[in-house]
């Protein structure tokens, strides 16, 4: 699966899709593949604020735990609660139904600093 070019990516393997001042965040296809079968996603609550580079949650496979790092700063305005019952969607549809949070961005310029799909592909191939 390719990494869609309608969005940008962070070093920590999150994708960001921007619509106005709202950024939707999830993890990349590459990241879900590395994790293996996702069994649990621990997400923050609506109204919490997140800071770029800091953790906003955790994602678990059967035998590993990884932290989720916020690619942007802002207020969380929506959380994908359906992942509570169906965490496997992060594996099957990481770039759409597997989204995690929507953030109202404090500083849209942070988005500019992220990688394009092409840059991200190079980043993960370089390992």
């Amino acid at each position, binding site marked *: 699966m390719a990494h869609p070019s309608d969005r940008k990516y962070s070093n920590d393997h999150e994708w960001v899709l921007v619509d106005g001042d709202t950024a939707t965040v999830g993890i990349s296809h590459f990241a879900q593949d590395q994790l293996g079968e996702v069994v*649990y996603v*621990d997400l923050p609550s609506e109204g919490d604020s997140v800071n770029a580079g800091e953790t906003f949650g955790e994602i*678990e496979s*059967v*035998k*590993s*735990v990884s932290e989720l790092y916020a690619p942007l700063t802002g207020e969380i305005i929506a959380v994908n609660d359906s992942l509570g019952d169906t965490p496997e969607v992060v594996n099957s549809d990481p770039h759409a139904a597997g989204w995690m949070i929507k953030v109202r961005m404090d500083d849209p310029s942070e988005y500019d600093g992220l990688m394009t799909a092409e840059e991200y592909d190079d980043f993960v191939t370089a390992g």
Partner: protein
Amino acid sequence: MRYIPVTCEQREAMLRAVGVERVEELFADVPEKALLNRPLELPAGMSEIDLARHLKSLSGANIPASWIVNFAGAGVYDHHVPSVVDHVLRKPEFFTAYTPYQPEVSQGTLQAIFEYQSMICALTGMDVANASMYDGATAFVEAALMACRVTKRQKVLVAGSVHPEWIEVMYTYAEAGHVDVEVIDFDGGRLDPTQVADAMDASVAAVLVASPNFVGVLEDLDALGKIAHGEGALFVVAANPIMLGIMEPPSTFGADIVVGEGQPLGNAMSFGGPGLGFFACRQKNVRQMPGRLVGQTVDADGQKAYVLTLSTREQHIRREKATSNICSNHALNALAAGAYLAAVGSVGLSEIARACVAKARYLRDRLIETGKFAAPWEDPFGYEFALTYKGDADEMHARMFERGFFAGIILSVEDEHDMILFAVTEKRTREEMDAFAEEVAAL
């Protein structure tokens, strides 16, 4: 050499295969200064026949409480262990196995633990029970630590009526970690809920109580649970598993975590260890639970099977962020508890508990009738109770031991009266209790 099957000839061949002449060469990485270079100063090895004689002589130097008329409890109880239990424990496929990390060849351990978890849930009314903790005391402390994680608070209120050793363990852990412990004193047989309410505020992570408590009395769980929940704290109840055969499960009173010492369930007294810490909680808090969990799933052929699950909580995966450092637990004691509960069933457990309760009341009445004992309170109790003794309790205790009676546990000296804690299990007979009362009266 004992337990080493390699012959001299085979050893020579192994050395050659490895490419050394002497086995000492394999220890070349040990710095000269750190080598022992002498035999350990220990007694020489023994043949099995000599060892058996030696061990018999050590065990013979003890007078086991199980051989005499035993009224001692205080955390370890002299219940009957059904014969089937040890026959299950002696199966080497169970006791010589490691932790069931390879589920394909560990279904025996896994299913037995799953069934144990289910039985603990049935007794406590909780949704989830873990595969075991070391003992009641450490399970109790882990419950406090879990409550701190769940509530993101760091103060706990502990009933002063809990076993004093458990409170001591709580302080030991609290001293090292980041938990503030406040112990609520108790006057008389049990906690005064208003005293707990007075100590309560929104910084409290949990209220922890035992019922029956250390002196055998049942606490007012209904009132205490409401006080805990009133400030958003968890309610932790330590229970006696035999009593849960006839008592309302702590879930009825809003308990969020139920723990206890599982030794009464088919485990020998064994000088206080190994016992069994049982630990159960509500489903919503399972991710903050310490210890291993067995879950049900299916295998590649779709057959029902069991596996260790939710392991990301544990130290081998989450390391310093784990819910506990526990790795080895008391799985074999949990196996014993499972076999015990299967053997007695709900009817047997209820009969055993009723017998304990009835006999405890009989002994209490008989002792008070002697005129040498008095009841310090009249609160409801299980099968353990405290009486004050009018006289020198130490002397009475020693003299009764000589006569084949373990006259309970001497608790404290209050004014001129010593308080003694008696436990009466289903093993005690009316004849024994009558004899005890008569002999004490005659002292």
